[in-house]
């Protein structure tokens, strides 16, 4: 059932976001094309040269070029942040929108539904984040010293290959941190929705619960930092076992709490 729920959540995300993603790719491609074909000159090229390049002040850099470049990076930032907003909106709608009938009538235990949403959210964030990074990288590839950048990429890939385990652990840690943050947000929305579906009341309750929750978590984290149990390193980052255990406890507790709220408290 968990597999079906994850597939369903991913399809929902794709169906609701596909035109936005395709539109994004097209607009960014057009911007890059316009910049490269119509607005390009050697001065700009030097400006984007990595490893020592600079633009001479005011020389042959058109306002259109600056506008398009700013637009490009704003869009890249937006697409990276989009899943964050979309996931919160989608979760809220799943609990109280018109499709909630379908969601809530699925005969699956609460934690599976929540976990499926969480996994789909993290996958969405990873895809959009990667898309954002790739588009920014492509921008530099097109507008900069291509060969030098390729060398940098080669060096980076070599570094990754040489530290495979550390890189994998770092990626896992990042995904875990994202999942943990989302789980706290889902929990706060669920607490709010267990009081009411009216957003004028539910939103302030959710924000209030989030502030209290994160404040308490900050206090506990601060306290635990005095009792690390064991300290270990992944790459260059040091971790404390006590904090890691707290992170795991938080994600499990919020998952269990959200599941309980969906099964026992939230009404439609």
């Amino acid at each position, binding site marked *: 059932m968990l597999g079906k729920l994850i597939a369903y959540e991913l399809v929902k995300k794709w169906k609701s976001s596909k035109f936005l993603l395709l539109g994004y790719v097209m607009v960014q491609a057009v911007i890059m094309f316009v910049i490269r074909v119509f607005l390009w000159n050697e001065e700009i090229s030097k400006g984007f040269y990595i490893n020592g390049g600079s633009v001479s002040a005011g020389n042959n850099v058109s306002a259109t070029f600056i506008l398009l470049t700013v637009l490009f990076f704003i869009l890249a930032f937006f697409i990276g942040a989009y899943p964050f907003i979309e996931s919160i909106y989608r979760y809220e709608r799943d609990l109280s929108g018109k499709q909630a009938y379908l969601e809530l*009538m699925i*005969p699956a235990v609460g934690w599976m539904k929540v976990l499926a949403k969480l996994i789909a959210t993290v996958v969405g964030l990873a895809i959009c984040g990667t898309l954002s990074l790739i588009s920014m990288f492509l921008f530099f590839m097109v507008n900069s010293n291509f060969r030098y950048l390729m060398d940098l990429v080669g060096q980076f890939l070599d570094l990754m290959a040489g530290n495979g385990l550390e890189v994998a652990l770092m990626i896992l840690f990042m995904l875990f941190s994202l999942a943990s943050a989302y789980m706290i947000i889902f929990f706060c929305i669920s607490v709010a929705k267990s009081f009411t579906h009216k957003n004028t009341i539910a939103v302030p309750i959710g924000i209030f619960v989030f502030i209290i929750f994160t404040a308490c978590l900050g206090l506990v984290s601060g306290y635990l930092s005095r009792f690390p149990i064991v300290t270990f390193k992944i790459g260059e980052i040091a971790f404390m076992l006590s904090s890691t255990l707290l992170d795991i406890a938080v994600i499990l507790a919020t998952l269990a709490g959200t599941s309980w709220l969906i099964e026992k408290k939230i009404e*439609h």
Partner: protein
Amino acid sequence: MITLKAENIIKNYFKKSALSGVSIQLEQGKIVGLLGPNGSGKTTFLKLATGLVRPTSGSITVCDREIGYRSKELVALLPDSEFLYDWMTIKEARDTYAAFFADFDMKRFVELLDFMKLSEDMKVKSLSKGMKEKLALALTLSRDARLIVLDEPLNGVDPVAREQILGAIVRCFNQESTILITSHLINEVESILDEAYFLKEGKIVLHGLTDVLRSERSKSLDELYREVFAC
């Protein structure tokens, strides 16, 4: 066999009482009407039976299962509002139901679609209100659920579509299941009901087998409805 057993159900929304002491028992193999005007508590009761809301007090079981995610395996719900995503095609809606409900009968769904004159490549977004209602009903009735709950299935649809919907309900009904149906259109549903509960201001004010009610009072169900609710 008892499909649904609700005992002394009280449901309050803060200080407002939606249901006060409702007891309903539904037997297998019957089509039962829950009749009452707007705000009488019909939809609240259906939501309680399907586990979408919880009673303030009292108990409900479906085939002896407490209401919860396990009881959802036994209950098929047709809500009174649209619940499918606009991006879905009918085929995708079918696949969603087939994935999540083990009792979904694909063959029956195809037959029902044919009966309703819908095709699988249609998009939910492009369907009229009546067509959406028919699609939702086809999905609901394609489940071999023990309890089928239909909330106002005739609301907002034209007379021809109403006939098709009622035809589909009768066509798909089997003696293993129970159908609980609410409607304002008593005249339309009267012919298919075996039993009726009249709900007024959160209380059952009249209940009986429809044949018995009609013969005892020498009135049609519609006339009884008008009498009870003083239209």
